[in-house]
């Protein structure tokens, strides 16, 4: 039981962490609350489903192509929609939910509402202290760790990572220092959507694939962003891990808990906003609160 909770929480938290970090990236750099973020995750899951079970392509090229394609879709959405209403934060939020609905409906019309699944990338399972752990889950956890470390290195060590962080701090000053801010927005949007794509690829064999699969993760991602502190990229990872464990605990310990997973996370989010609006590690921007 205990080991079950420990490991399932880690798997859930890891997925949410990848999703949350992409969400936090575009939010902290471009101040866009992208509610369509997990719709990109849904798209990636469907792309890998299409390429593996309908077209029968090879696994590894497909994974890379899916991630790249998702990134491109993200950039297209940014160029077509977000870029035009970027000045109005309300409009950005409403339009992003509209985009999520749009993508959901397109996939619903093409594929219908049935649940689909794909075979695991890695077969078999192993026993860790009495708990059955499938290799696919282990693979997902390990890749999550690798990707998070790689992203952290990219953001903190490279020149472009520096530019991204400086745009997040102050876009006008960054512009004056010769950084092309709109290009940075595009890059960050591509990386953010690409992260959602990675999460979709890693989780496609574990979860059921359906056009409605984006609804639950976006709730958890929002809650973990707020818990970690809006605008803090490291905080979002910690928040996502905490909420992954909270969700697992609720599902394991409370009867009827599977309905409550999202509600408990949201209650945590509302409490955090009320009691400590800057979150665990947050930078709460002065002009945005009273």
């Amino acid at each position, binding site marked *: 039981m205990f080991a079950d909770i420990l490991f399932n929480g880690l798997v859930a938290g890891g997925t949410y962490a990848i999703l949350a970090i992409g969400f936090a990236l575009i939010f902290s750099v471009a101040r866009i609350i992208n509610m369509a973020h997990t719709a990109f995750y849904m798209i990636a899951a469907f792309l890998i489903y299409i390429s593996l079970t309908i077209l029968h392509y090879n696994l590894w090229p497909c994974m890379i192509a899916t991630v790249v394609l998702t990134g491109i879709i993200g950039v297209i959405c940014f160029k077509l929609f977000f870029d035009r209403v970027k000045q109005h934060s309300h409009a950005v939020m409403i339009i992003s939910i509209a985009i999520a609905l749009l993508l959901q409906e397109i996939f619903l019309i093409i594929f219908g509402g049935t649940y689909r699944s794909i075979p695991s990338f890695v077969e078999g399972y192993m026993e860790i202290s009495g708990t059955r752990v499938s290799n696919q889950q282990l693979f997902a956890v390990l890749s999550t760790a690798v990707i998070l470390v790689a992203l952290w290195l990219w953001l903190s060590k490279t020149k472009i990572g520096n530019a991204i962080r400086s745009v997040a701090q102050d876009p006008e000053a960054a512009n004056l220092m010769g950084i092309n801010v709109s290009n940075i927005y595009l890059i960050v949007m591509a990386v953010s959507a690409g992260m959602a794509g990675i999460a979709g690829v890693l989780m496609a064999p574990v979860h059921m694939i359906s056009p409605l699969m984006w609804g639950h993760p976006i709730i958890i991602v929002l809650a973990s962003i707020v818990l970690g502190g809006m605008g803090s990229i490291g905080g979002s990872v910690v928040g996502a891990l905490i909420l992954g464990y909270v969700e697992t605990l609720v599902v394991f310990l409370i009867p009827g808990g599977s309905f409550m997973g999202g509600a408990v996370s*949201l209650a945590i989010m509302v409490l955090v*906003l009320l009691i400590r*609006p800057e979150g665990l590690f947050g930078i709460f921007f002065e002009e945005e609160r009273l």
Partner: protein
Amino acid sequence: MSYLRLLWGWIRQEIFAVPGRVIAAVFFILLFITPLITSEPYYLRIIIMACIFSIFAISWDVLSGVAGQLSLGHGLFFGVAAYAAALLNLHLHMPPWATIPLGSVIAVCFGLIVGIPALRLRGMYLGLVTLTFPIILTGLLFVFPDFTGGEMGISGIARLSKSNISSYYIVLVVFCVSAFIMYKFVDPASKFLRTGVILHALREDEIAARGAGINTTQYKLIAFAVSGFFAGVAGGLYAHYIKLAGPSTLELFFSFNAILWAMFGSIATIYGPVVGVFILYPLMEILSLFSWGEQTRFLIFALVLIFTLLFMPEGISTWILDKLEVKCPRCKLVNVFTRKKCRACRALLSGGK
């Protein structure tokens, strides 16, 4: 007789001279005489639903359009009132005229609960919080299915009234009265109420409003309460009209209906949401008559919302009124676009061209 002539003169000066008011008057007269023209239940049903949703959309407009407190989960108030009315009717056997106001009062309580975070947050953060409450409530509904009916909702509620026509007139009168109250409530030029101008100020610049000595906390809560009350009225009417209170009213999509209608009509104008509902709701109903329309409903919904935001952010009624009406540059009186001189002060309307 002389009073009649005075009245006629007033109507000529104040209504016939302004195209927007002529359209509104014709619209309401048409609504009131529709049952004389047709008693087809299908058409009456569409108009009744449009009236109910108009109240809902206006209440969103009061809170988010006029007062600027972004609410992304407005279905909460609607759904809470619908459930409250249904439960009161089912368990305490109260008639609709008692359950609807009581349900609205419960919705007001929820409005105040949601309003408390609003005192500390604004903009996107408030949107996030308001988004969460319906989702939390939906989770609770599914945990206690014996009491709330779970996924099926509560059915077997009393009808609003025995005949279709009387339901129609009840809904229509409630709609007119609520729309009028909310219009006066947020009218910035009102001589009796300060709320209108204060709520507009709250949206434009909260710090300046505070600096002018306005207790912004109080007025935000008032905006939440009024908006919640009228959304609750709409929810109670809805539950009694379709005889069902279900979790679909708490869905994200339902809340976004109100946003789409208000945005499409014209935000922060009160008449805008009515225009939006009466254009879009019948269109959606006509679409759902076809099998392809039923499938692509949400797709079309999302596309209309995106296109409105990108290409017509001021909304359709502002766009039309801009074409039909000219404001006098000297006395700020509204005139028909065909006039060359202002009807009151004879100033040139084209600005001396």
